[in-house]
């Protein structure tokens, strides 16, 4: 569920520091008296290509309201990379509002955002836990070449990128065990490998 509440700038006089006891963990600024007897808690605003995302909660005198993720100014085009970052951001806020990761996070919401919103490479579509706790493995989309075996069976070979941020990723070849290909299939696979290598170095394809 999304709401579309526009939050005034932080300099607004109505904004005060969060009251530690009553605020939800994500709250970095809240407004009291927006409506009589109501307080609005807002996380730090995070922005991806003009799309602003935040976690919000309305509290009333009767108790805490539902936590929601707010998406603002979405009426514009975003690139594929920006869309991936936006999806990561939304996923983060969903976890924040569900309280999944609050205790292990840095003290402020801004720090949480800096720590958890990944600065993905353009080829990354999936993030997985790395070999150690502080690592995140980034995996690219599989690109396939269909192959024809001698006996008419069809198979395929997948090529993808995977690696850690700041390092040249590895190229993964899957399904290549004992795979016969027509010359055309083989050339297509070679082109895929070259394209993956160029992508790994950040070169135009």
């Amino acid at each position, binding site marked *: 569920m999304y709401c579309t509440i526009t939050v005034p700038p932080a300099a607004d006089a109505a904004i005060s520091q969060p009251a530690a006891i009553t605020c939800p963990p994500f709250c970095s600024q809240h407004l009291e008296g927006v409506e009589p007897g109501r307080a609005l808690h807002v996380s730090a605003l995070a922005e991806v290509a003009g799309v602003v995302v935040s976690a919000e909660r309305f509290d009333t005198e009767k108790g805490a309201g539902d936590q929601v993720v707010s998406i603002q100014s979405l009426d514009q085009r975003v690139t594929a990379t920006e869309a991936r970052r936006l999806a990561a951001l939304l996923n983060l806020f969903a976890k924040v509002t569900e309280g999944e990761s609050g205790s292990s996070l840095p003290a402020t919401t801004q720090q949480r955002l800096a720590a958890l919103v990944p600065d993905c490479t353009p080829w990354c579509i999936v993030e997985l836990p790395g*070999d150690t706790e502080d690592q995140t493995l980034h995996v690219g989309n599989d690109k396939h070449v269909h192959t*024809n075996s*001698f006996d008419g069976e069809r198979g395929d*070979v*997948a090529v993808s990128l*995977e690696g850690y941020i700041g390092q*040249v*990723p*590895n*190229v*993964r*070849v*899957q*399904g*290549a*065990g*004992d*795979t*016969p*290909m*027509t*010359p*055309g*299939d*083989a*050339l297509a*696979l*070679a*082109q895929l*490998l*070259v394209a*993956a*290598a160029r992508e*790994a*170095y950040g070169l135009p394809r």
Partner: protein
Amino acid sequence: MTAPVLATACAEPWCDNHHVDPDDGLVMHASSDVAVPMTAGGSAEQYVAVVVVERNDEPDGDTGSAKVRLEVAGGMFGGLPKGGLMTVEQALALSRAIEQAARTARFVSAVKA
């Protein structure tokens, strides 16, 4: 199945290893293996990607279609793993091997046509 018999001569310039299958008379041609080392991510597992051109000819002399075989053989598994990680340089080396094999196979097909 009877063991293949090594043929004595082959006219194909790319063929380095061919056999005659005594069961059906097929003549199986294969080029030399081109091996590219691969490393598994985050471990010491070693793989070798092998690229080879193959063609089966009929006993009556009809030539079959040449194909490129890519095998990823390796190391600790002692068989054929589902996949392997390569550095970018290894991937480029593999692509060159595949492309060269494909051009060879395509040339063979063109000659047949």
